[in-house]
């Protein structure tokens, strides 16, 4: 059993080393990358089954028992998010490989892309499975360092400019995280989450609140919570579309996961719940109003992404089993839907050479399949029944009504408004770019026109091909949309699972017991 907990991290890291060694054999690199992702996905599914039937699994590393040593812990929340994340990572990997295979001049410098992508995967696994704050920091750093490489891949001027914003903001967040870990260690003498759950309760209330807020700020930077969101719409759209898709789907959700984990386990009295509700309202309103004002499809989707982080904060802020369960359900649905949307936007860009919706029109006639791949996740995010977005929003609203506080109900009303705003933003794209008069869109200026002579020609992702997207690219995007629809079919079991996960989170005694008893 315990090998299942360790394998995702170890396999991905070994895979990263392997693809680095295979640098000259592109086919072998791709094959190894796919195999690693498939195996880790298999591990994650097995882990979810084990954790759901047997209980949390703990592996003390290096023979040092917690709380001194590093422990990897898998509980229902971690295993569930691991399964969803690996599904998304695999789909995006297949899409990226198809893109670099079909666009001979395009694609990514394969020798950089695959190792960085596998380190990203390892970091995602480590962040979900870590049982202490410092290992969580290391997991975050693995994800971020890989993402710095991916966001600036090829080193074009535009990506360098956007990448700098991203890198500097993320570094500031990381330093703050490290500082917070140091302060918490100074106050309690431990960084193990289970041990902290007990020792933080013995601190003065003022100090506890300070730590709760510090951790909230750290993870709010990663999750792009308003007012710490401005970096996201500026940096994500600059990266190649598969990379933007995986960042949008996963990276912010790791921040949300860390928030759910720390706020429930370390502060079971809901020390920051009120702040979370206010932040949720601000995030939904500002993010989605920002989305309506955009004319660039990827920037619009980035603002929608920011806005929808608010829903997850809202579920956590309600701080009941139903609320946290709703937040987890929403996270699962949102990872899949957002990634699918960005992949569809990548297909649009590949065909037309632009994502400026004012220069697009009649896409639904030209590329009906891509239209469908865009429409389903867009409708799901807008909360149209019977799509998973609707079910997730319904779960959140039911939780809010049964909790019944005045602030909660006000924010619940804002979630309804936010759904309408999402629908407006999506409908604007749909009526302008997908319906309307077919135009032969003018591609964006060649990003290399301003590039220096030594710019890597390999980097030019081929856009504006005017050709049909190959099936190998539409298939992974379609598979993700199908997974999204699968959430509807499996809504009952999934909802029951999220409720069990939320119950575990809000009654952390068993988690603490299992971790501290591990040998």
């Amino acid at each position, binding site marked *: 059993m315990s090998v299942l907990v360790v394998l995702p991290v170890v396999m991905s890291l070994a895979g990263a080393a392997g693809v680095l060694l295979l640098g000259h054999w592109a086919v072998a690199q791709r094959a190894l990358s796919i195999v690693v992702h498939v195996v880790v996905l298999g591990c994650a599914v097995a882990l979810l089954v084990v954790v759901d039937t047997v209980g949390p699994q703990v592996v003390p590393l290096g023979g040092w028992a917690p709380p001194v040593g590093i422990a990897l812990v898998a509980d229902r929340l971690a295993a569930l998010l691991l399964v969803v994340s690996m599904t998304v990572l695999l789909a995006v990997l297949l899409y990226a490989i198809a893109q670099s295979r079909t666009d001979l001049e395009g694609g990514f410098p394969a020798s950089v892309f695959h190792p960085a992508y596998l380190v990203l995967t390892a970091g995602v696994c480590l962040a979900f499975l870590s049982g202490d704050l410092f290992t969580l920091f290391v997991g975050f750093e693995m994800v971020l360092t890989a993402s*710095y490489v991916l966001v600036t891949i090829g080193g074009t001027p535009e990506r360098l400019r956007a990448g700098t914003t991203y890198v500097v903001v993320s570094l500031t967040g990381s330093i703050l995280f490290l500082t917070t870990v140091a302060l918490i260690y100074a106050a309690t003498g431990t960084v193990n989450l289970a041990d902290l759950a007990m020792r933080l309760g013995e601190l003065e209330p003022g100090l506890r609140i300070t730590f709760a807020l510090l951790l909230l700020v750290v993870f709010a930077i990663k999750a792009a919570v308003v007012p710490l969101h401005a970096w996201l719409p500026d940096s994500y759209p600059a990266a190649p579309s598969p990379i933007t898709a995986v960042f949008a789907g996963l990276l912010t959700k790791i921040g949300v996961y860390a928030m759910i984990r720390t706020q429930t386990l370390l502060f079971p009295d809901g020390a920051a719940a009120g702040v979370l509700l206010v932040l949720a309202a601000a995030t939904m309103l500002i993010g989605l109003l920002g989305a309506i004002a955009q004319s660039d499809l990827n920037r619009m989707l980035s603002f929608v992404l920011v806005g929808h982080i608010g829903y997850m904060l809202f579920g956590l802020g309600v701080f009941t089993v139903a609320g946290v369960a709703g937040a987890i359900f929403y996270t699962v649905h949102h990872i899949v839907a957002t990634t699918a949307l960005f992949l569809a936007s990548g297909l649009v860009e590949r065909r037309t050479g632009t994502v400026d919706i004012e220069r697009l029109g009649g896409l639904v006639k030209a590329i009906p399949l891509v239209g469908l791949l865009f429409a389903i996740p867009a409708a799901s995010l807008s909360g149209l029944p019977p799509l998973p977005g609707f079910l997730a929003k319904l779960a959140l609203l039911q939780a809010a009504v049964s909790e019944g506080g005045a602030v909660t109900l006000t924010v619940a009303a804002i979630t309804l408004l936010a759904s309408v705003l999402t629908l407006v933003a999506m409908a604007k794209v749909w009526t302008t770019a997908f319906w309307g008069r077919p135009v032969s869109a*003018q591609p964006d200026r060649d990003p290399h026109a301003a590039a220096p002579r030594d710019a890597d020609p390999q980097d030019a992702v081929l856009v504006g091909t005017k050709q049909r997207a190959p099936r190998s690219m539409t298939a992974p995007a379609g598979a993700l949309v199908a997974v999204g629809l699968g959430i509807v079919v499996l809504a009952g079991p999934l909802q029951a699972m999220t409720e069990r996960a939320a119950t575990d989170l809000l009654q952390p005694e068993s988690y603490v017991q299992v971790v501290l008893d591990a040998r």
Partner: protein
Amino acid sequence: MTSSVALAAVVAGLVALGFVLLTSRSLGRITVGFVVLGHAANLLLLLAGGPALAPPVIGESEPSRMADPLVQAFALTAIVITFGVTLLLLAMVHRSWAIRGSDQLPDDPEDRRLADVEHRAEHGEVSESWGYSTENRSPGERSEP
């Protein structure tokens, strides 16, 4: 727990210096700022472990006289991470220098566009339409001035 006030003051000074450098426009200064901030965080980690004592090596000193080894492990890990990220930043500085001959960050195009809209609105010119309309514009016409 006892800690040195002088060292705490050093942490404060490093944090202040680091953030000032981080807000500058030159990528080279940002890199130095990040290095300084990394030092501040590592020093804080070491301070979190209490006063400096004997090396935590079994057989060398009594366990009661040992310094806390955990924070040393943390700081070591954090140093390795900051080292790697610093190299990446230096690569970005080099790339930026190769592309533009300077490491100054260019203007954000979105900021420039918004400033442009404001500027034109102030001077009574018709501002550009936001979204929706493709009718009154020939296909492919750029929305930028």
